[in-house]
């Protein structure tokens, strides 16, 4: 069933099984694109073990000052909304870690003392894992904002089914990652933490106008606050994945469950079908 849809898997929090679900969906789908958007802590490669065909450094522009031209007039430092520039003892200092690369300082410098140089932010990797096109990126440690890396990843998005493994949380990186999605699959744990985080990503997906549904993960006997939340908010539950020591162990070893076990292959194939149906606006089901 060829579709052109982009599915984002998210959770509000790490460790709920985003990567587990994403890599397994990609594995059962085959001929698909998997994009690891958790650029701070990428993990998808540990499972899909892609061979890389290309690595590319992603850079961001940062201002540098020509001190012979700068007269310390402070026009740039006063205009910078991020306080990334300061004139101290008549010398202009630039704090790269807090610079947002907006370009305003260069524009308003009356003496053209500022120019932009490209500095590395991280690496984008493109590879293949069998018939799966694999994309991931890694932010350089010490950098603060990885949004440009996610933008660079998304530029490489092919047509066909795409699975986005989102970053945790509900902040700017997640927003950037799911802007490109047609549908969000929200993975939730059976705890009060899980339900709270589910509510957060549900709110974010709703704000961005993305249709979404829930997969309950690590379910066990007893109450499931995430399930209660989904039911009381008319959020479709696409399935539940019971806690399984064997699955947890395989996953901890970096193995793809649906490659190892027929049971999980069937499970994720079924889930993929459900996701595709739920994400299809023309679906009759």
């Amino acid at each position, binding site marked *: 069933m060829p579709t052109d849809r982009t599915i984002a898997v998210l959770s*509000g*929090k*790490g*460790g*709920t099984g985003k*990567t587990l679900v994403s890599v397994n969906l990609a594995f059962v789908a085959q001929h698909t694109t998997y994009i690891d958007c958790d650029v*701070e*802590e990428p*993990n998808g490669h*540990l*499972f899909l073990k892609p061979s890389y065909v290309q690595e590319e450094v992603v850079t961001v522009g940062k201002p540098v000052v020509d001190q012979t031209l700068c007269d310390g007039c402070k026009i740039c430092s006063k*205009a910078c*909304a*991020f306080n990334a520039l300061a004139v101290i003892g008549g010398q202009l200092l630039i704090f790269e870690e807090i610079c*947002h*690369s*907006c*370009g*305003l300082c260069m*524009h*308003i410098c009356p003496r053209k003392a500022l120019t932009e140089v490209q500095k590395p932010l991280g690496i984008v990797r493109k590879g293949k894992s069998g018939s799966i096109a694999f994309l991931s990126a890694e*932010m350089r*440690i*010490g*950098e*603060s*904002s*990885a949004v440009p890396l996610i933008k660079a990843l998304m530029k490489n998005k092919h047509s066909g089914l795409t699975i986005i493994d989102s*970053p*945790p*949380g*509900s*902040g*700017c*990186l997640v*927003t950037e990652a799911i802007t490109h999605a047609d549908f969000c699959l929200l993975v939730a*744990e*059976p*705890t*009060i*933490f899980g339900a*709270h*985080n589910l509510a*957060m990503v549900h*709110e*974010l997906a709703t*704000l*961005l106008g993305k249709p979404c549904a829930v997969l309950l993960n690590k379910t*066990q006997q*007893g*109450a499931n*606050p995430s399930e209660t939340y989904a039911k009381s908010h008319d959020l479709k539950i696409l399935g539940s994945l019971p806690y399984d*020591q064997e699955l*947890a*162990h395989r*996953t*901890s*070893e*970096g193995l793809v469950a649906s490659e190892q076990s027929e049971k999980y292959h069937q499970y994720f194939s079924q889930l993929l079908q459900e996701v595709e149906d739920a994400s299809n606006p023309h679906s009759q089901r």
Partner: protein
Amino acid sequence: MHQILILSGKGGTGKTTVASTFIALSQAKAYADCDVDAPNLHLVMGSFEKEQKSDYFGLPKAVIDSSLCIACNRCFEVCRFDAVIPGPTYRIDLITCEGCTYCLHVCPVGAIHTQPMKVGDLKLYERGEEHFSTATLTMGSGTTGKLVSEVKKQLKSCTEETEVAILDGSPGIGCPVIASLSGVDLALMVAEPSVSAFSDLKRVITSARQLQVPVAVVVNKFDMNPTITGEIEVFCFKERIPFLGKIPYDSQVIASLNKGENLACLNTPASNAIKRIYDKTLQVWKERVQQ
């Protein structure tokens, strides 16, 4: 005030569970949740006598006055955040606008101004002598790191005299984590024994070391994979990082958390392990502080 931060690199490894147990064991008077993206600590700390909420404003964002806009496209050309939406009159996407004001400087007709944007709530809870600082970020806002700094500042301003504060950290290695780590005396890393959590652990340790924050490591749910637990121990030994213990998988933990019970009150394999780790953490912390 000395700060002990609980961190993990990867989320969901049990930071909040460990932090809440530590708070109960130490009878801490000062604690904070630095995971403003998805705060959870308040869910297990019970009810408070006093709650004080204040609006948190991020950078003012750009707004275009449609009656003045002449659709000249200058703002669109200079915006590097794809926040300008062209049309018969131009608009700003408030989610992507970072408030740099470049557009305002190039608009030839003065159609753009900035307006303050509330991006979150800063919350301070009180119960007897206890102070708990936390925050929630408005959906779609991006100023996470700054809000984390505000959470810490708020805690410090009302508990300056308190000896030890316990901070629950945020996942990743980006701006919120950097903000969490600043000024901290010890970062206790809670890792899970999996290839992915181990990979994240190494990255967050590098971040902490760049900021010259001492680290210590514990493994949660260690019996899920004793082999990788062993690898983490060896890694810590080689890197001269104190390894403070192992917490077993314990099905009673989920049930008690869902009932709102603190693990410090329980006598289960996991809670007993955390109690031992707490004693060791204090030892390591004292050695660091005395150095």
